[in-house]
């Protein structure tokens, strides 16, 4: 596993304590898991995502990511309706390891209230939390 300073955390994302990220893109929010999460999990072998049209509350479990070490639930950073899922992850789950913020995105949601994003951590706050975990 890598040290925190070897991982990348883009500035334009919001992060959760469960290591999901969210990015506002016009009317939609794109969701994925952080570089830290994929590094902790190790080689990802399976990603289970919800159906397009499913509705979730903020904090609901929306899927499972499974690696050779563990299976981990993923929780929604923001309330909304699933608009699109990343179908490429089913045949090629390793994309999440290789590109957690770009090709390895999980899904797009239509948020009920985009302002909910403001309650999530920015890069600095997330890094601080990760460093707390390490000590």
């Amino acid at each position: 596993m890598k040290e925190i300073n070897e991982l990348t955390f883009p500035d334009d994302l919001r992060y959760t304590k469960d290591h999901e990220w969210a990015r506002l893109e016009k009317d939609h929010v794109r969701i994925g898991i952080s570089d830290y999460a994929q590094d902790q999990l190790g080689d990802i072998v399976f990603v289970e995502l919800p159906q397009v049209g499913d509705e979730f509350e903020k904090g609901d479990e929306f899927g499972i990511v499974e690696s050779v070490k563990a299976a981990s639930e993923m929780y929604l950073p923001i309330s909304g309706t699933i608009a699109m899922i990343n179908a490429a992850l089913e045949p090629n789950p390793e994309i999440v390891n290789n590109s957690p913020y770009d090709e390895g995105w999980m899904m797009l949601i239509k948020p009920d209230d985009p302002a909910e994003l403001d309650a999530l951590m920015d890069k600095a706050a997330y890094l601080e939390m990760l460093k707390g975990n390490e000590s």
Partner: protein
Amino acid sequence: MQESVGTKGLIFNEPLLWEKGSKGRSGFSLPRRDVDSFPVDEELCGDGPDFPDLGETDVVRHFTRLSQWNFSVDSGMYPLGSCTMKYNPKTNERQAALPGFGGAHPLLPAELSQGVLQIMYELERYLGEITGLPAVTLQPAAGAHGELTGMLIFYAYHQSKGSKRSKIIIPDTAHGTNPASATLCGYKSIPVKSDENGVLAPADVAAVMDDDTAGIMVTNPNTLGLFEDNIQEVSKIVHDHGGLVYADGANMNAVMGIVNMADSGVDVLHLNLHKTFATPHGGGGPGSGPVCVTPELERFLPSPRVIEKDGKYRLSEDYPDSVGKIHAFYGNFGVQIKAYAYIRTMGAANLKKASQLAVLNANYIKAALKDTYYLPYNRPCMHECVFNDKFLSDFKVSTLDVAKRLMEYGFHPPTVYFPLVVAGAIMIEPTETECKQDIDMFIDAMKAIAREARENPELLHEAPTTPKVRRLDEITAARKPCLSG
């Protein structure tokens, strides 16, 4: 340091049986036919099964070679946390193979099966006494099956009270099968985090326990190898809301003759005969997961049940409130005999001593290795202790590397990456059947590996190199599983 038990050696390759042998080769000869041949109805004829033609030498060498690829408690220390891989005394196999047991058949009438029924009846009494929960079923085939049986009993109990509850509380230090068993019974699992001491805090249970919660599933000692100190208080909170307490007794090896589970507030508990009671585990044979309950819940136990009257034993189906049958016939009886033999050969005092030694051995390892491997919860443990790879991360060495390297020292790796509450967990359970010399060799091996991690991490990344196979490609196996031959 003593010479390591791990060494190099010649290992035989062995193909599949279908790739061996040749047409017409045979291991025995049929006696000459002494009746006239008779035509068989054509509908009953067809091609025979696809069996290879083999001689006795082919078959014996085949299975002997395969057995030499194996690692077992008969060949070395197997410190697999939460699995209680203790040595299985050979006398238990001998008792189970007695002709009266070997020739028993479940369809024989009770009057011809008195000995078998007596063993089952008495084993139930012993397990009831050991746990403090006197009503017992021997039907479940393994631990998770016992958990499901327990959940069915929870459901039947609440139904008898005219209520249908929807949730079960499960701590994050419970066995991984607990939420699966609750889900299979239709309950939603409500997770509760353990506190900074690695145990349940009563306030955290009180915060989620309500009148729609059927109860709690606690593993005690838990998967951090810690005793749930607050179990009585936790049980009271659950009972005050009309719920029941299930204890996963897979870790019973730490507390035999020491903790009365009924006194700690437990209503239902399963045991793993293949862990605590020294019957073979995993590939060594089928398991057995008896369920023990309070007298109040006895009427819900699976049927049929063994009953005794005037020294005669029989099976009774007369339990209208029972959750019903949960295994063909009466469970894995061969396993029950071995557990019975174990309990009788040990006796009450030695069962207690076994638990004491299991706890002592784990604490000895914990104390010996705590400066070498990071110990997330540094407090007295029960029968197992949990380290992680934090001290090794600077050298890019992980728990998996340590586990793989340990094979080369001649030890089965411990449980790794479980429990999930400890990142990179290394969970070691030595059991009471390892002597001090062997435990010291294990400790020396673990220390040597930590030294190698600092001085030559590549050695660990490459490990294992001496076993028959190197690291398996778990990633491709999981991503692209080949599910047929």
